[in-house]
């Protein structure tokens, strides 16, 4: 059975780009779930079994940091690895994301090979 992934980004372009990168990697992906903001992301997490979350930070309604904070408050959700994919380059913010439990940080635009390597390390 493949890994179920949740991709949370307000940009349809990035959601499709992440899904495509996963589909051409040799990772065994099960279902793809999508959300346009943190609130929708939490709804998907409540409704589905998710193995890994890819999230942007800068999103309307509920941003990625707020979503991750909510995930950390719930025992079941706090164990799901989160990869943040963002344009953020501030060292302080990247460190604070890791302190919050974010397992990996990828800068946009990411290189597919680097993306696949990071995901494999987290899932295996």
């Amino acid at each position, binding site marked *: 059975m493949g890994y179920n992934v949740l991709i949370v980004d307000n*940009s349809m372009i990035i959601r*499709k780009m992440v899904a495509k990168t996963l589909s051409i990697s040799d990772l065994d992906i099960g279902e793809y779930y999508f959300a346009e903001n943190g609130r929708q992301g939490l709804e998907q997490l409540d409704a589905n079994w998710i193995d890994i979350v890819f999230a942007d930070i800068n999103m309307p309604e509920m941003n990625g940091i707020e979503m991750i904070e909510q995930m950390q408050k719930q025992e079941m959700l706090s164990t799901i690895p989160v990869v943040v994919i963002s344009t*953020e*380059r501030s060292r302080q913010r990247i460190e604070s994301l890791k302190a919050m439990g974010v397992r990996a940080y990828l800068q946009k635009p990411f290189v597919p090979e680097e993306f696949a390597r990071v995901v494999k390390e987290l899932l295996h």
Partner: protein
Amino acid sequence: MKTQDNNALLLEVFSAVFEEFAFMFVEAEPDLDPGDTRYCPCLQAEISFESRDKKGFLEAVAPADVCAELAENILGTEQDELPEQAEEQALTELLNVSCGYLLAERFGTEEVFDLSIPQTRPVDEQEWSALVEEDSHVCLLVDESPLLARFVLQQ
């Protein structure tokens, strides 16, 4: 920061982002003709940023055809397969990435900036000509089509 330095920074940032993101190439275009509107309709996108003591915005105006090509290249798909609003979203994502890159290049990675959600709107021939003429943007060529860019630091 001098205008020339600002323009050089915009060229550097847009060149790097277009190339990394979409395999498209950017060069400076110092002599854009305001009367040449064959590239219209265009799209304008803007993103603002704010830190503890700085704020401003980054803007880009590009032909809709360039935005479509950008979307095709990012998604690896043909134009007739592009999803709805792909052109707008490709331009806003390009601007989003460029803004993060530009702020790090200009101010380093110690400062924390909050970015807005980028917004887009259409630009017609009349407005395009006015933007080229007013000379407040740097003019670039993306695979031989024009792109206007502006970085404004308000405080």
